[in-house]
């Protein structure tokens, strides 16, 4: 005796089921006979030899066949219960392996592809995004004629096409510098006060120029948008971990590349890299102490001792280094924000 719910009301009807070729014949208590094509029926649940069937197109229609079910009827329905269509097709273990491989590929692509794709992003797009992101820093740029000339001179020493770069000093109390989308580089006022001289500033500036020239900024943006959005969308702990990896704005590889690039630029300009090592030393001591809320994009992740050693080693005895700027020029650059009314 099987139980039938017709999906119209909650009434429970006893029926006697029997299979005839490709139909299931239900005999109701009052003798009426109902013929159901097996193709219209689907498996809802298989449990301890009993079956629950549903009927396509009739919501709530359920037929409960108690164990033992006539093998002829039983055989018409799947024997295993689903993990989901793709996984059922592959089998659990094969699916696990396939998904693991696919996921590893997705993470790898999310992490590596931006570096490859970055050079393909048109300048105009990056420019527009850079404008949208930083705008004009609320008009907080510092500029004096003498200071501006000194800065331009420094940039020209470090880069072959200085006209493309937009290097500016911003009156914000941050001991930091940043390479931003659209070939913007900003040096914060507190950094100028902190560094020991023009050589040290030149090292930092060269590092940021290298970030711009290697398209690291664009890659970091792509990574942040790509992986970051996927992670935010899917949520969950795995997504969160992926996000935290992507949130290291520049990859460690990019930082090293920028450091090497900076050293090459300094050597070409005959500026001593050793003073820059001092800056990284000081930065290492303050590591983790400075976090600016709301300015997540601008924060960096210094790698302290290793970078200091790199710049120290780069200083060579056989090169006659010259000061990056004359004392007068340096004084003009350093006091650029000082001559400006502080907010």
């Amino acid at each position: 005796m099987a139980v039938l719910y017709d999906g119209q009301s909650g009434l429970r009807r006893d029926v006697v089921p029997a299979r005839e070729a490709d139909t299931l014949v239900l005999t109701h208590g009052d003798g009426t006979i109902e013929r159901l094509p097996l193709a219209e029926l689907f498996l809802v649940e298989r449990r301890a030899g009993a079956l629950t069937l549903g009927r396509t197109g009739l919501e709530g229609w359920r037929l409960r066949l108690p164990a033992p079910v006539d093998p002829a009827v039983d055989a018409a329905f799947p024997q295993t219960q689903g993990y989901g269509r793709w996984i059922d097709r592959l089998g659990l273990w094969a699916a696990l392996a396939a998904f693991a491989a696919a996921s590893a590929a997705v993470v790898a692509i999310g992490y590596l592809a931006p570096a490859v794709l970055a050079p393909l992003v048109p300048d105009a797009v990056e420019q527009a995004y850079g404008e949208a992101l930083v705008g004009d820093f609320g008009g907080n740029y510092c500029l004096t004629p003498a200071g501006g000339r000194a800065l331009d001179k420094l940039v020209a020493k470090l880069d072959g096409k200085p006209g493309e770069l937009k290097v500016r000093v911003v009156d914000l109390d941050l001991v930091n510098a940043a390479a931003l989308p659209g070939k913007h580089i900003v040096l914060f006022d507190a950094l100028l006060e902190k560094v020991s001289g023009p050589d040290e500033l030149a090292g930092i500036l060269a590092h940021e120029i290298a970030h711009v020239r290697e398209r690291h900024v664009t890659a970091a943006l792509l990574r942040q948008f790509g992986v970051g959005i996927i992670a935010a969308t899917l949520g969950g702990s795995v997504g969160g971990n992926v996000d935290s990896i992507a949130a290291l704005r520049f990859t460690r590889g990019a930082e090293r590349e920028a450091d090497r690039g900076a050293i090459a630029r300094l050597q070409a300009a005959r500026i001593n890299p050793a003073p820059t090592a001092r800056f990284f030393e000081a930065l290492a001591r303050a590591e983790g102490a400075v976090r600016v809320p709301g300015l997540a994009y601008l924060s960096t992740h210094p790698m302290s001792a290793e970078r200091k050693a790199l710049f120290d080693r780069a200083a060579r005895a056989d090169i006659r280094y010259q000061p990056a700027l004359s004392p007068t020029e340096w004084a003009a650059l350093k006091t650029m924000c000082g001559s400006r009314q502080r907010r």
Partner: protein
Amino acid sequence: MRLPEQAIAPDRATDHALGRGSGEAHMNEQHHDFAAGTADAPGEAFAFTGTWREFAPIAFSNLALTLVTLGIYRFWAKARERRYLWSRTRFIDDQLEWTGTGGEMFRGFVIAAALFVPALLFLQFGVEALAVRGHLAAAAIGAAIVSLLLMLLIGSARFLALRYRLSRTLWHGIRGGGSTGAVAYGMAYLWKTAIGILVLGLLVPWSMVTLWNARWDKMSFGPHRFQASASTDGLMGRWILVLVSPVLAAMLLGILTVAASALGMVAQSDLGGVVPAPAMIMLALGLTVGVYALIGLLGIGYFAAFLRNAIGGLELGELRFGFSARSRDWLLLFLGHVGLVIGTLGLGAVFISYRNWSFFVRHLQASGDVVLDDLTQSSEARRGDAEGLAAAFDLGAI
């Protein structure tokens, strides 16, 4: 069929339960089956028949698949889990059935994400961009507006999650549902939550109870609307205890500190100036744990009473519901969770949903009549929004 007045009383069940007496007014021709179907647990309207051994393969394969899919499988995992838990939940004479699918939950989630990702992007980048330009006021106002919108979405999500679960729950081939009104509910959620917090938190019980009623009044099963008439009776005392628990904790700390310094002085004089550092550390540790335990216990006490009130005020047709879990039961549930997770180095966490559901069903009660002739199919739309919004915010339905 008729349920006993007190659904938990097994002795009375022999007289009244489930239409054994053939003269019941609302009997229909199937009463023999009902009696037979409930012979194993007479009197309890709801019963949970699952075992952790059956659940374990589902839980562990779900965990493995969720990990290797970077979390995407969790929607299908949820569907498998619910199919099992629902099918092992018996109401009177037959099991429940979960008809929701992982695919629809995934789609619902993607739609919800499309709503809230722009908001999150604005909070992450827009506010920063404004602040960097010096438009601090605009940044603050923008952040506040977006935060309010997110709160509105959270409220709506609770409504939608409950409606979704009812609409995918089948019993005797009949499902539940709910009417429209998610956004209106979200608005109510927004201002009632705000008011609850504003007045020293005193109105939190009021906001919780009225929101519960507003939510359930829109829900239905088959042709019947739920009627929710929960009140704050008996909640205020417990809630005030929760509110003053930091003060209580501070007082407790003060008393114990005095006692400790007294002890310390005694120890000092005995041991010739040696401060009993380990003892003091143990005491400090014990105090900290004790303070958190106190606040936690009072919170549990309030929540247990809230849920008893809330579910106790629910009616559906001629059915009345009840929930019997007391503070002690909740405490044991939580301690069990903690023990399970710690004892298995975290792996046992996959059983938490199982334990929660079994706890819920074991304490859920119903009394009154179910008239099967009147229990016709729900006419509410079987909407496809699933519980995406709730999943996006990681919310529960109740």
